[in-house]
């Protein structure tokens, strides 16, 4: 990826709670893929990062994605690499998961399941929310 590098010292001392909200299915539109690109680049800034998956965004974490027939790149393994970027707070909406007949065992990474009230509290607590 041809992104410029940033001087991390410049941001020392200023750590914000930064949340990415993923609401779209992984394929069909580019939102999920480009959101993940922001997360990976953003990791260099050493902020207090959380990822939320809700609505059709929960499908981004579904195990066993096979995109061959659509000629789309299967980028789901990248979610497993987030740990190496120190992105470890992953939250999934309980309602969104249940509405789609999914269970936590269907997901490719360990996540914390939050109900609507808990999700609202977590969002309330953020400095920045980037929604995709």
């Amino acid at each position, binding site marked *: *990826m*041809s*992104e*410029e590098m*940033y001087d991390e010292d410049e*941001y020392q001392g*200023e750590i*914000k709670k*930064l949340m990415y909200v993923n609401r779209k299915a992984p394929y069909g539109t*580019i*939102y999920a893929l*480009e959101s993940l*690109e*922001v997360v990976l*680049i*953003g990791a*260099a*800034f050493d*902020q207090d990062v959380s990822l939320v998956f809700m609505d059709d965004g929960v499908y981004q974490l579904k195990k066993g994605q096979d995109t061959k027939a659509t000629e789309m790149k299967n980028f789901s393994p990248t979610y497993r690499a987030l740990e190496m970027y120190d992105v470890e707070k992953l939250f999934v909406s309980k309602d969104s998961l249940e509405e789609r007949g999914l269970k936590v065992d269907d997901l490719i990474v360990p996540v914390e399941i939050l109900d609507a009230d808990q999700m609202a509290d977590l969002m309330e607590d953020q400095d*920045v*929310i*980037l*929604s*995709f």
Partner: protein
Amino acid sequence: MKFAILVNEGPYTHQAADTAYQFTKAALENGHEIFRIFFYHSGVNNGTRFTRPPQDDRDLVQNWSSLAKDHNLDLVVCVAAAQRRGIIDKDEAQRHGKDCDNLADGFRISGLGQLIEASIQADRTMVFGD
């Protein structure tokens, strides 16, 4: 208040681009500071000078350029998203052997770090998208 603005949708396809423009204009008129406006996803299409809307319609790209000029705004188009969608400045056109460039006046192309930096620096980040 110091705002960072994220625009995730292109002009004419989605009203988010218009709303972002109107919000920015209103914020400036009310004495607020716009730290940066970052164009991502199809929002990068706000930065092509090749758009030609019908004469009786608003010219959103021109509006952004004028607003940037009047208020010295920092309009940043994401390089990765721009490359996918054919938004290209002079340097990029040369580097990739393209016969012309199309980045509108007042915009510049840079990396995603500019979005993160803006959201850290600003008091509030506003996301305009679908």
